[in-house]
């Protein structure tokens, strides 16, 4: 396994973070932003209740909102990266205007576009996503910089204490790509089947 090559910041190991977030997941539904977050969630263990995005950059949070509104009795989390969130940053305003209690958006933030050569992203150049989420009126906004904080986020994914946003500071670094199913229709069908649809 090629792991942690070129690790050069002091953030958390993204695979450890996502494995922790997905543990004891109960009925949690997950939408994953394209690129590394999709590989991270797949690496934590394939599950029919994961909706892996391989494209649709900027759409993960909105897909999560649609899902949360369709499944109000289940907890929905979006796990995405800083670049993907930035492309659809207006979604935070849209989510803030509606705030379903069963929706959480988690951004794995390394301040870089990891899939394209580690160019610095806006969060590495000054944008504070927590401040954006707070300004958009989400019910809770939190930041995790250690695994204790990650465990707090994990509990909140299930807490239904309001619509939330978490930024988790992760390290840059190359990981083995763990590739889940890539046929979007197959992902959709097995997801809906898992929900009894």
């Amino acid at each position, binding site marked *: 396994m090629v792991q942690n090559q070129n690790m050069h910041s002091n953030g958390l190991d993204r695979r450890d973070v996502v494995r922790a977030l997905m543990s004891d997941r109960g009925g949690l539904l997950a939408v994953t932003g394209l690129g590394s977050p999709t590989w991270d969630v797949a690496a934590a263990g394939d599950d029919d209740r994961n909706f892996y995005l391989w494209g649709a950059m900027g*759409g993960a949070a909105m897909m*999560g909102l649609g*899902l949360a509104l*369709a499944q109000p009795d289940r907890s929905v989390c979006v796990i995405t990266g800083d670049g993907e969130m930035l492309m*659809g940053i*207006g979604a935070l305003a849209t989510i803030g*205007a509606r705030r379903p209690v069963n929706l959480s958006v988690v951004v794995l933030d390394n301040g870089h576009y990891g899939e394209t050569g580690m160019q610095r992203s806006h969060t590495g150049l000054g944008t504070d996503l927590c401040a954006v989420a707070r300004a958009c009126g989400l019910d809770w906004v939190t930041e995790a910089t250690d695994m204790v904080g990650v465990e707090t986020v994990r509990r909140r994914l299930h807490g239904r204490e309001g619509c939330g946003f978490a930024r988790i500071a992760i390290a840059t670094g190359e990981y083995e790509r763990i590739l889940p199913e890539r046929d*979007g*229709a197959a992902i959709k069908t097995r997801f809906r089947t898992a929900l009894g649809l």
Partner: protein
Amino acid sequence: MATTRQDATGTTSWQDGVYEALRAGGVDLFAYVPDAGHARAIRRAHADPDVEAVVLTTEEEGVALACGAWAGGRRAALLMQSSGVGNCINMLGLVQSGRFPFLTLVTMRGEWEEFNPWQEPMGRATPAVLEAMGVTVLRATTPDEAVDLARRATAMAFEDGTPVAVLLSQQLIGRKVW
């Protein structure tokens, strides 16, 4: 045509007919970027306790929202004007890749009694852009057509799984008034 043009904020009967056609087809989530031509549907969606209405900052949010809703078993429609279709291009790849049903109602700008020439480029490109991204385009130019196509498009989307757009011609809505 007087009845279809009297009120740009939307109190005419075809607008009620279109809204009711979507509701009858099981649509209970309306995502929108506002347009005067959709004002009636937007107002009714917000007033309906069985319906969720979500205002978007940009139209492609509605494409992703609709796919998420379908993944969770709910039928959504995206209401926008033609200028918003261009914003949706890449996100419509999600509809194709996941073979999601997709329904949008598009009020046309830039084609008839348009006071703002800056609406014309995207208005002209709207059908080609939708078709290029795999969306079937239906066009309504009369009130009866609008209601009939809304009904058929809803069935096409959610019974047949066809991504479909109903273009509501600008002559249905008339010149923008303040």
